[in-house]
């Protein structure tokens, strides 16, 4: 490596000798508090939205289960009455004279 290049490298490595510390934003504290408050509001809002959707899903699921239960119950009752009718040769829909 030639002298000139060596000197340039040394000068570059020494260029941050005596470097002073950079100064941070004097309004940093205010920015931090604003951000934390904004984040807190976002969490509360998100929580409310999630709760509302969860409640809606529960209500719909509840309606579906109730409907299925009622249908199941009426199907069973119909089967019982048809079995009874066929046992006693009664056709619930036609009457033979």
């Amino acid at each position, binding site marked *: 490596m030639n002298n000139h290049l060596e000197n*340039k490298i040394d000068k570059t490595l020494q260029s941050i000798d005596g*470097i002073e510390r950079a100064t*941070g934003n004097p309004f940093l504290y205010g920015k931090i508090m604003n951000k934390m408050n904004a984040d807190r509001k976002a969490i509360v809002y998100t929580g409310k939205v999630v709760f509302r959707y969860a409640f809606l899903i529960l209500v719909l699921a509840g309606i579906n289960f109730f409907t299925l239960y009622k249908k199941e119950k009426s199907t069973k009752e119909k089967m019982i009455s048809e079995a009874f009718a066929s046992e006693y040769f009664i056709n619930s829909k036609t009457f033979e004279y």
Partner: protein
Amino acid sequence: MEELQLISLIQKKDENAFRYLVETYNDKVFNTVLSFVQQVEDAEDICQEVFIEVYQSIDKFKNESKIYTWIYRIAVSKSLDHLKSKKRKKRFAFLQSLFGNEGISLAADKPHFDHPGVQLENKEHSKVLFYAISKLPEKQQTAFTLTKVEGLSYAEVSEIMEVSVSSVESLLFRANQNLRTLLENYYQKNL
């Protein structure tokens, strides 16, 4: 304010205590982060994240080290995460450019960072040096930045990095060697 008293007050979410902490460590954190990320806007955003993390995690602080050690550790960690994220975005942008997406511009990879604390006559050389520092492996970059830019002692750096003092010395030795190589290659191409 005594450190234990300060920590205790912040754990009770005392805003005056937290303000005191921010004002005490603002310049230290900013200078450290800036030296890693080499962009003022990014450094300010990361500084916010550092202090928010300190506030939210203060209950986890176990008083096994000094609070400044813990704060520096968070600052270094967030800076390195930011650099990794930036490299990923660059790689993605490069791939997009291969598919002819002209809208994505790749930032030219060259010395650009003007640290505000460098003396005027050293500005040009320091830009090249910071460019070379950014090319070092993470641990060497951390050790070099904390000692040479932030001015911390080897003992302080060893606490922050959670390595021995001799490891810090070894990292600095290797960093200097690598910097010489990087600078030699740079100047041979650019003289």
